[in-house]
């Protein structure tokens, strides 16, 4: 899923450059790139198709019928999933939505504040701060999970919703992106003009800069949402109560039931399929903000 977002950002920048420069070339079909892309798409979509089709198979059909032949057990799978431990799956779904939704929202706020500040204000230590942030971008969050757990344990917050939410609030990459975006999208002149007119810094930020930064912030939100939704290690270490588990962890417990209990494949596959739907929906809904991104880039002087 996250790869979708990655492709979007550079394409926006590329379109801006092209529009600004020479007149557009006449399009012709480039065979090799098209084929490569089609192959890439196939490579990405095949597993998704597998999940979709496998979720319709009953346990008996799962490993015995042809892989891409739809089965007959989708309704039963849903019913079984719903019945598993009194519907704990929906609890996991809700938890994931809370962690990803609230976490991404808070993270976007922090990124917006700090990105804007880093882009607009000149102050001592700004570059140092930004460089430390860049180092943070390079640091894989997995490395931090255990130290974060030990910190949370000191604060007595382990096995709580906060234990998963708090570490996600500061996203170095989000701040980095917000700064780059704010530097490009919020011209200094506009900020100056606001000051001349006597607007407070807060007002300039909320009324002028923030609307200009929206497309960038949407990207930050999506990145963070997908990252939290797919996150495994942090909640795995932080949480022990399975009523607080996000979907990733919950499905893992269904798979690893111990040597003497067969893994609940059909439930896991159906659960994984349902877990993808909110992400797809989110991307479809938010897509229009990206087209806005393209426009606002092109219109700029």
């Amino acid at each position, binding site marked *: 899923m996250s790869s979708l977002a990655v492709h979007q950002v550079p394409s926006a920048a590329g379109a801006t450059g092209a529009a600004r420069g020479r007149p557009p070339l006449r399009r012709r079909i480039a065979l090799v790139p098209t084929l490569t892309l089609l192959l890439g798409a196939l490579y990405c979509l095949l597993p998704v198709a597998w999940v979709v089709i496998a979720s319709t198979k009953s346990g008996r059909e799962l490993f015995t019928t042809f892989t891409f032949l739809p089965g007959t057990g989708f309704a039963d799978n849903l019913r079984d999933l719903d019945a598993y431990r009194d519907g704990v799956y929906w609890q996991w779904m809700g938890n994931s939505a809370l962690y990803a939704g609230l976490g991404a929202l808070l993270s976007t706020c922090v990124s917006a504040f700090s990105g804007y500040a880093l882009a607009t204000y000149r102050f001592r230590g700004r570059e140092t701060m930004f460089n430390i942030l860049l180092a943070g971008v390079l640091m894989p969050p997995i490395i931090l999970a255990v130290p974060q757990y030990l910190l949370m344990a000191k604060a007595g917050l382990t096995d709580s919703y906060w234990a998963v939410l708090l570490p996600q609030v500061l996203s170095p990459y989000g701040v980095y992106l917000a700064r780059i975006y704010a530097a490009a999208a919020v011209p200094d002149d506009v900020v100056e003009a606001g000051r001349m007119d006597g607007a407070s810094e807060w007002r300039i930020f909320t009324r002028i800069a923030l609307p200009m930064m929206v497309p960038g912030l949407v990207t930050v939100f999506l990145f963070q949402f997908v990252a939290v939704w797919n996150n495994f290690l942090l909640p795995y270490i932080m949480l022990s109560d399975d009523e607080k588990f996000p979907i990733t962890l919950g499905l893992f417990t269904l798979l690893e039931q111990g*040597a003497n209990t067969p893994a609940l494949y059909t439930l896991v596959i159906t659960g994984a399929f349902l877990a993808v739907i909110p992400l797809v929906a989110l991307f479809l809904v938010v897509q229009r903000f990206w087209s806005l991104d393209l426009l606002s880039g092109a219109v700029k002087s």
Partner: protein
Amino acid sequence: MPNTKRRRLLVRGAASALAITLGATALAACGSSDDDGGTASGPVSLTYWTWTPGMDKVVDLWNKGQGKKDRITVTVKKQASGDTLITKILTAHKAGKAPDLVQAEYQALPTLVSNDALADIAKNVGDARAKFADGVWQQTTLGTDAVYAVPQDIGPMMFYYRADLFKKYGLTVPATWEQFAETARALKKKSPGTDLTTFSASDSGLFAGLAQQAGAKWWTTSGDKWKVAIDDAATKKVADFWGGLVKEGAVDNQPMYTPAWNKALDTGKQIAWVSAVWAPGTLTTAAPDTKGKWAMAPLPQWSDGENVTGSWGGSSTAVTTDSKHKEAAAKFAAWLNTDGDALNALAKEGGIYPASTSAQLSGAFTTPPDFFSNQADFYALAAKIARTTAPSAWGPNVNVAYTTFNDAFGAAAKDRSDFSAALAKMQSATVADMKKQGFEVSE
């Protein structure tokens, strides 16, 4: 520090960790219960990490019965099983936040003990000993006077075969491994497309169990040092036996638990399975069309007249050193794994095969599993086989040995090449890792 050497035998890392030794002379003072005030004072609530399905329902029995009387409430926090859980327990232990009770597989106990994560509950559960076979109980003591866990379920190994197809191909159930090889060859001759079974290089636990049956003792201690003997004569015998069969093509070399394997079992392309007592559950989902066509027999033996088996799987209930109510936790652990009602519920809800010998023939185990309804004496035979389980010898880095097994044997099985080279690799990687961790290893 005068006792550094002894300390390094089992305890690594944390300097504050209490000394634990495997020597019978020096009994570990671990888990001293100074902080373990009376259980009578006030209600106690305990948390329990387990992966057994339906454990919450079993624990309800305790919370409404015995636990209510003793004012001890247990809360289940369901976890995923496997090595990752050990890592999670150790991480929590580092922060002093491990739960009161954990479920742990036998081979993980040395790892947990060497990190000082498990309390010695010998004083509290000593009476339970009589309920278990010696070979099972010994796994929870690690050969010391301490007791680090109460056995919950076991996985004595057995030989499963398609009774109908054995008859069809004119095969007899092999009593020795030699006969097993002949059976595999005879089947290949009669039906080249059919395999007796497969050697799965992704199931290290199966290989460990087979080696255990042959008399291997992979980890032992002498004096202050560990001895690693993964490439001992017994294991070599097992490795060469299977390596030979794979090389000549008498058995398949594909891993188990894959869709292809399920299909092979379901369609009768593989007609036997070396497995453990929990196999009926696996077969129910892997080969649903073969219900009632299987039968179970003791594992083939290395020499005629012998009667030994290994184990594959099984777990125990342990009390952590972080628990503030070790005595209460131990009381619950003993109840869970020895009380008749609890074990019945465990069998019904969690599908486990109990370690407690008295439970192996009662309740849920008076009738054969559904999938084996044709074999009326299934559990009577199983209980008899369970008594012949060879002692096991686990060490503090079973996970490393297992990972190396998957890599080295996976490659060897794929190329149908020499298994003893893979075994040597397993040995050297395990020794190297132990040294790296700071254990003293004798060559």
